[in-house]
């Protein structure tokens, strides 16, 4: 029976053989692998790209102090982007499952309609949830729009829920009982994480400080994008070296801080919609600037 890290290693090498760049996780907090620049920015524009990476995804409101067998503050996604999507993408995906030891002649594999949408990113796509013996193990999306921009090439995004997949393969009921390596369980590796971040997010996070941080990062992103917008059309030298990637980090910070405030119960109804709108605005204007920069760089 494969352990957690074996599964990750196998999937990574599977996609490496398909020509994917094996990236390492983004070092900024994100709620989903989609938000990483390797997905959010790479899917924009006409350049083909393939990548796969494991992204720890933080969702403060989903924390359960390490007490719920299925819910986590931070779970791991294996994110695969194939741009443009190859014609045999589903077959490839199925083979990746077979590579980790799932015999699809002996397991019930179904694709059930599930269209994906991320309002804060101005992004949506058409796709399915992948069901294996009644368990949702992946999300499969053909991106149609990102950062409010219709995509030229349609990427396929595969998001594997690694904990679920492993629990399935190891036949355990709780994620904490997953064998991470031959000697360590998921509990050994991650329990404290889950417990302490739940305490922080639900009880201790300083609301005022978090709010201020949100404002600060928002302002920083806005400042940079505005400055980029102010550059002369011919100033290609400055444009092509302009720090839009750091500006995008600021957007991600805002998104995460918003999630923290939300988990903390600190956001009123009226404010909630407004804050989502603020993050979306940052993401959309950044995406437009990025598209422009890509054209300049060529």
């Amino acid at each position, binding site marked *: 029976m494969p352990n957690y890290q074996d599964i990750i290693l196998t999937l990574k090498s599977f996609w490496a053989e398909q020509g994917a760049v094996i990236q390492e996780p983004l070092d900024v907090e994100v709620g989903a692998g989609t938000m990483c620049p390797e997905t959010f920015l790479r899917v924009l524009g006409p350049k083909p790209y393939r990548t796969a990476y494991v992204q720890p995804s933080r969702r403060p409101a989903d924390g359960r102090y390490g007490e*719920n*067998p*299925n819910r986590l503050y931070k779970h791991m996604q294996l994110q695969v982007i194939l741009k*443009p*999507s190859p*014609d045999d993408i*589903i*077959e490839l995906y*199925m083979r990746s499952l077979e590579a980790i030891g799932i015999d*699809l*002649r*002996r*397991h*019930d*594999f*179904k*694709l*059930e*309609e599930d*269209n994906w949408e991320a309002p804060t990113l101005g992004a949506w*796509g*058409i796709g*399915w949830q992948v069901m*294996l*013996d*009644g*368990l949702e193990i992946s999300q499969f999306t*053909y991106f*149609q729009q990102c950062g409010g921009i*219709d*995509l*030229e*090439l*349609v990427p396929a995004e595969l998001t594997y829920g690694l904990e679920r997949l492993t629990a*399935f393969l190891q*036949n355990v*009921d709780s994620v904490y009982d997953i064998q991470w390596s031959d000697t360590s369980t998921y509990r050994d590796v991650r329990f404290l994480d889950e417990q302490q971040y739940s305490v922080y997010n639900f009880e201790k996070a300083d609301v005022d400080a978090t709010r201020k941080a949100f404002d600060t990062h928002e302002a920083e992103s806005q400042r940079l994008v505005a400055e980029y917008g102010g550059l002369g059309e011919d100033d290609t030298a400055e444009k092509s070296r302009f720090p839009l990637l750091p500006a995008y980090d600021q957007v991600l910070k805002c998104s995460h801080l918003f999630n923290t405030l939300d988990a903390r119960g600190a956001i*009123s*109804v*009226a404010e*909630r*919609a407004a804050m989502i709108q603020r993050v979306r605005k940052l993401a959309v204007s950044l995406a437009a600037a990025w598209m422009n920069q890509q054209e300049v760089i060529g």
Partner: protein
Amino acid sequence: MAEFLLEIGTEEIPDWMIEPACEHLERNFLDALKEANLAEGVTCITHATPRRLVIAAEGLTARQVDKDQILTGPPQKVAFDQDGKPTKAGEGFAKRAGVALESIEIGDDGRLFVKRSVKGREAVEILGEALPDVILKVHFPKTMYWTAKSGPRFIRPIRWLVALLDGAVVPFEIAGVKSGAKTQGHRRLGTTGIDVTGFADYQDQLAENYVLLSAKTRRERIEKLANDLVPDGLRLRKNDKLLKTLGYLTEYPTPVLGTFEKEFLDLPEEVLETVMLHHQRYFAIEDVAGKLQPQFIAVANLDGDPDGEIRRGHERVLRARFNDGRFFWEVDQKQSLADRMPDLDGVVFHAKLGTYLAKSKRTTTIVDAIAADLSAGDETAGHARRAAELAKCDLTTEMVGEFPELQGVIGGLYAAHQGEPREVAHAVYDHYLPAGADDEIPRDLAGRIVAIADKLDTLGGFFAAGMMPTGSRDPFALRRAAYGVIRILIEGEMALSIDRLCKISGASNHGGDLREFFVDRLRYYLREIRGHRYDEVAAVIGASSDVPLDVSARTEAISQVRPTLDFEPLAVSFKRIENILKKAGGVKKYAAQTVNPDLLEAGAEADLYAAMTDLSAKVSGQKESGDYVAALNAVASLRPAVDRFFDDVLVMVEDEAVRNNRLTFLAHLLTEFSTIADFAEIVSG
């Protein structure tokens, strides 16, 4: 006669879109044949699995019939000059027609003409041109592009195409996929690149490759094998909708029997069913008394489960979900529904209409007003009020967070569990009803009051904010809400007035629009659901539309009395009276005057007047007591007297006083007996 086969090979199409897509595809296909004059004698069927939409047609003509075509040119005078030499116009026509000028004939009208025989085109060629549109114009609720932004749109990517006319490929291309003669089997049990020659062969080959092409066959297989699995003494809980869904989620369905721990049966059946049926798509199993059993049937898209791995997988998922349910139930009990009320201030109903706390307060006020109008009694009024306060509190529970489709239901279960009176729990449980056409209305009066008030507040709020439905756009399901109110009023026998409801709804200056909106739903209900005729509904609503319960009773009475001998002829006479009055200055004008009995002519006129006076008291008594059938029969009994009146009496006589009095009399007759229905609206014959 040729046979045609089309298979559109796709990635998995959402199950609920498949049947409408088949219908649409067939229509597009037949339309294309019609346009090409190839449709005659064609019979055609469609089939579908999640990965393919299929048309099989027989009786196609392989070629269009040759047709004679006549091209008409300029008059002879224009085509040739005085010397008989061709002009530019003449030469031009010959060139266009593609013949030598000498061979052109001249018709009786003096114009040049050419008779040509147009060769019919090959069907294979016509189909090749038409099929891309036939396919891409199938309507889906949401489509995607997959090759590029500029590429074609369909529900999911098209991966292969089979198009055969009598075994020969009909060539065309969509999104880089060329039509051919190769199909694909089941994703894992079948192979790819399977050569097919025609429909029969195609169907056989698919079956060999674990694809049952017919949805009916798949459903029958599910039912049969599932029933075989059910232990003795128990039965499958029937669910046709689920059966249909599973038929379109699989190409080779095989049921698998699973079990779960008995302890989970302590959870409310609503939760168990939601998880099993809606989330996991499992069939439930019950005993002969209908009691849920700790077993279920999952349907795999495979040929079997030899080592029980699929069963174990489904069991584990179900256990986890039931455990969640149990956990949510326990956590939710830490705070009673009543204690959750202040939290509703944190749940937005709509940005323009405030939070659910504000909504609950408004609804409570409406509940009080309705209970008073109905003289519902203190106890019912109290229950309804309490239920209105609690109705939305389950929105803050973990259980509803996980199972939003159980809103209301969970509140009702919690209310009962927390010791609220039974009527209060029922009212909370039922207050979203009726949500669909098959739904019952709330079971108790308190629940009906709350259900009406909740919907009324929603309607009033959105109308006041100017957000009424337009065309097919009704994002807040306001039509459903108004329709629900109408159904509760009529089926719950609540004699409330629409005017009054609009007034208390908060629709403010849009009350009139809301009123019309309700009357539209009322019309729909009487016609489509109760099956009343169009003119009957128009007649009844024409008399008055304010109390739906009363409108419904009057319509029932009309439908009942209508077949009697005197009714329709009387309606014709009433129509005639109305026309006379309209020409003479309007019904209202004369209805406002009083009849002078001394001016009535002895005989038919005086007799009719006497009959009217006689009946008037009787009819209004019957109307008062709600016996509309008797009242209408009484009115219908006027027919001989009315007929005689029109036979013997001239209305528009010279003498102005007599004429005026006669018109006044007729106006009274018309209005007096048109309060149940406006008979003039009845279309006879």
